[in-house]
Each structure stands twice: as C-alpha cells, then as structure tokens.
C-alpha cells in the first residue's frame, strides 16, 4: 500500500521583491533610475512530507521563512514556484475548500471577535464552517471539558488573561474538528504554567483525536514536549529534518543543538 501523506511539499519557493518602482511614476529629465529590484528568497525550494497524526515542529531563527511557509501551506500566500498538497488540496488554489479541514492559530492574531463573548464567536464561526447549532453546542461542551475552559466561554473576552484567551482561541481553531492543525507561535506571551498545560493539551489532542500538528515556536520546550519530529529552516532552506531525539543532548534538551544550527548558518564562530 502506498504511503499516504497529510502534507507533501516539493521544492516550494517564495521570493519577495523589494524596491519595486511605481508603475505610475512619470519620466523626468535628470531622474536617475531606481536601484534594480532586490529579490529576497524567504523560502528557497523546501521539500518534506508529513504523515497523518505526526507532531512536527517547524523551527528556525527570526526571518528564516517559517511563517511564510505556513502561509503557503494554509493557502493564504501564493508561492513563486514549487508545489504542495495539503490533505489532497493545492492550498493556494483551493483555499476555501481546504479551510474546512484545517485549523490555523496564529499566536499574534486573534480570530475571535473582541467585542463578543467567546461563546458567541464560536456560534458565528460554527456557522461559517457549516456546523449546525446542535453540533456547535456539543463541540463547545466537549472542548470546554478537554481544555478546562467552559467557565471562560461566557465571560467578555477583554476580561480574560492571555492564557485564558489562548484556550478560547484553541477552542475556535478546533471547533470544526480539523484533521490538521497549523500553529504559528501559539505559546507566545503565555506564562510558564499556561505553557505547560497548553503543551499537554496539544499532545492529548494528537493522542486522542489523531490530529496532525504542525507547529512553529521559538521555545525549545514546545519542541521537546509537543513534537516528535523537528524540521529546522534557516535562510529559507531546510537544515535538519529528523526525530527530536536526534537533536537532543544526553538529557534530551534540544536548545544547544538548535543554537548551534542557527549560529552556524549565520557564520558565527
């Protein structure tokens, strides 16, 4: 039987051009031409495949191309070249259809309506994802128990702490039972206790529901406690792809290995 992949990426590339000249610029005697456009390769021909139910950490230094890659895999950014298949869809061409099967959580962007109580945001999001009110109620109840967050759902969002908000964000992300979760720095801003329970929650989701997890984070503990495989990207290219255990030291800590990978790439001693 052939191997089935949840995500399959082949030589995916994204180039951003900077210094673009305005198309409406009028010619003027004596004006020197602007510096030629500079191409910045945010993602440079990356290839990998992820199997159903895998927990993968996608890590790298700032500006390595993590968020750009996630945006392409969720379909909200077109690549310059290369191909990708996510749950059988070409993300950027079938973004709306793919959206029904994936959940995406961007740690620095809320998907909840700030004026509404979370439970009302869930009702609206549920309708957007085609769920009946009965299904929404059942799912919110179920997630409330798993996340220990039922009492938060009826409080104004502005009165919730960052950790409590993140539980509501995760509820919103999981409302339509996605097969695949994209998490872009989900633990940013959380305190130690909240981070710990958040990581346990992700691991539980994966174990109990078989949800595939694709996570970016700068926090080494996220990688150690959530992921079983790590892909290191730097300057748009993949530098390492393998089990987390291969990256850890004798104590299983990945931080020093990651640090070395990052500094090697920067050319530091």
């Amino acid at each position, binding site marked *: 039987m052939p191997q089935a992949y949840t995500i399959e990426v082949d030589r995916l590339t994204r180039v951003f051009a900077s210094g673009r000249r305005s198309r409406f610029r009028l010619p003027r005697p004596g004006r020197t031409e602007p510096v030629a456009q500079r191409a910045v390769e945010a993602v440079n021909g990356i290839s990998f495949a992820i199997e159903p139910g895998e927990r993968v950490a996608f890590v790298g230094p700032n500006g390595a191309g993590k968020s750009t890659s996630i945006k392409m895999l969720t379909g909200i950014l077109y690549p310059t070249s290369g191909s990708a298949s996510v749950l059988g869809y070409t993300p950027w061409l079938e973004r709306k259809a793919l959206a029904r099967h994936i959940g995406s959580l961007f740690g620095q962007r809320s998907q909840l309506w700030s004026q509404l109580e979370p439970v*009302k945001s869930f009702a609206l999001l549920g309708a957007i*994802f085609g769920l009946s009110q009965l299904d929404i109620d059942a799912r919110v109840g179920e997630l409330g128990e798993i996340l220990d967050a039922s009492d938060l759902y009826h409080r104004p969002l502005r009165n919730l702490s960052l950790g409590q908000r993140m539980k509501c964000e995760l509820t919103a992300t999981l409302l339509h039972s996605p097969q695949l979760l994209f998490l872009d720095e989900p633990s940013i801003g959380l305190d130690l206790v909240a981070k710990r329970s958040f990581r346990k929650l992700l691991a539980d989701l994966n174990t109990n529901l078989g949800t595939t997890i694709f996570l970016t984070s700068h926090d080494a503990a996220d990688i150690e406690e959530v992921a079983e495989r790590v892909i290191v990207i730097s300057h748009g290219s993949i530098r390492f792809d393998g089990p987390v255990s291969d990256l850890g030291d004798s104590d299983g800590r990945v931080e020093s290995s990651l640090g070395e990978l990052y500094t090697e790439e920067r050319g530091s001693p």
Partner: protein
Amino acid sequence: MTAVLARGDDPVVSLPRVLWRSFTAGFNLTSTDKAALAARAWFYAVVTSVLASMWRIAISVNNNGSGVGESGVGGSGVDGVEPSVAGYTAVAIFWYIAAAEAALIPVPSNLIEQVAKPIADESVEVWFSRPVYAGLPTVLFRFGQILPVSLACALTGCVLAIVLAGPPPNLVALLLALPALCLAVLLSIAMQHTFAGLAFWLGDISGMWLVYHRTVFILGGLIIPLETLPSWLEPVARAMPFMATVYVPGRLASGHVEPTLIVRQLFWLVIALGAVALVYRRGEERMCRRNL
C-alpha cells in the same frame, strides 16, 4: 506516494445562515448595551432639535419674503396656506430631519477608517482561512450592531417630532419610512465597506471617510432636502446612491407617499452588496498573491 484526501466530505456552508448569524451577533451585542443606546439617542435628540430649529427660522424668513426661495423653492404664508420651503412645512421638515439623522448618526463617521485598518495592517488574513469571504458577513455584523441604535434614534425622533412639531404629516408615509430607514443604514454600511475595501489596493485610505461624509452631507440630502439644491445639482444628487442613505427615509417620513423611492434603495443596495462581495473577493486574491 499519495496524499490523504479530505475531498468529498465537505460540510455545506450556507451563506444566508452565516449572514443571519453575523447580523444577530452584532444585534445582540448592541441591543444589550442600554447605556450606549441611551447616549447615542441623547446625542441624536440634541442634533435633531438644533437642525429643526434652524429650519423653522429659515421657513419663517422665507415666509416673510426673503432669502431661501431664490431657486424657485420658496413657499408662502398668505391666504391660509402653511408656510413652507420647497414644499416642506415646519412640521414636515422636522420629520424629515428626524428620519434622515436616524439613518446617519448611528453609523460611525470614521467607519471607512475602522474597516480599512485590518486590511492595511493585514490582520484581515485570519478571514482567509475560513470557507467564506469576509465582505458580506462583516457588513451584516456591522448592520446588526448599528440597527438597534438607529431604531432607538428613530423612536426618540418620533417622540421629539410629536412633542415639538406635531403629528406625522402622513401615517402611511411614516410606515414606509421604517423599512426605508433600515435599508438606508444597510446601504450606507455596504457603501462604506466597498470604499474601505480599496485598502486592498491602496493601503492607507484613512482620509477617504472625510470625503465620503462631505459628499453625503450635500448629495445625500442631510443638511437640506434635495428639492432645495440648485437646479443643476438636484438631478445629479438624485442619480447617485448617496440620496438613498439619507434623503429617502427623510422624504417618506415628511409625509410623501413615494414607494418608488424604496425600489431605488433596493436597486442601489443590490449593487452595493455585490460591490462589497467583489471587492473583498478580489482583494483577498490580491493579498494572497502579493509581491509576486
């Protein structure tokens, strides 16, 4: 190698249901905030009273044979005929202003700026990973938020008009003014979302709300009904959608039974909602292809 396929088991997303949910979420949000409703209604009452008072003076001056009636819009107070300007008596103009302001004041004056901000800073991207486009649900959410305020203002306006001016000139026309008011608010929101959507192409459009509002003030018939505009400007104003956001509810509330005005509103509403849907759809595609 094959890919795990999720095709074939897509849940059906009903756009009318999404729009209804968006509307009710917005409606419940505002209708439960009684303090904010009362504050808006109070502000509305002050503005309406002041404007109506100015018009009463204008009609009185016109009745004494000076000023306002130069473009053939003047009225007369002789021979038992009630003094008026362009066919609007003091009572009618009070009802006109009450309805026109009830359509305008509840809509935030910087709505275009508010809607354009998440587009300009790209936080609108959270919508891109959803099965429906952002435009129409966002409009309906806003409509739900603003409609209770508009209805509270309309109720206040009715009480003010009856107490300070007199009973409505025509009850049938007043009943027609209610759906016209709702359509006017929805149209105004849809038009402003369309303009705000231009931020997908232009980036910063923060100054556009000022231009929009100045246009509505004049061509929409806010300060003065369209009949009192210069003869060359009146047909221009009538041919534009701005009149459907302010003038139409005012005209009906002032006692003119003209149901065709509602048909005009519906015409502009279909165009405006279509434009919002198109702008957000194209804008989303553009943002996803940015810098290619």
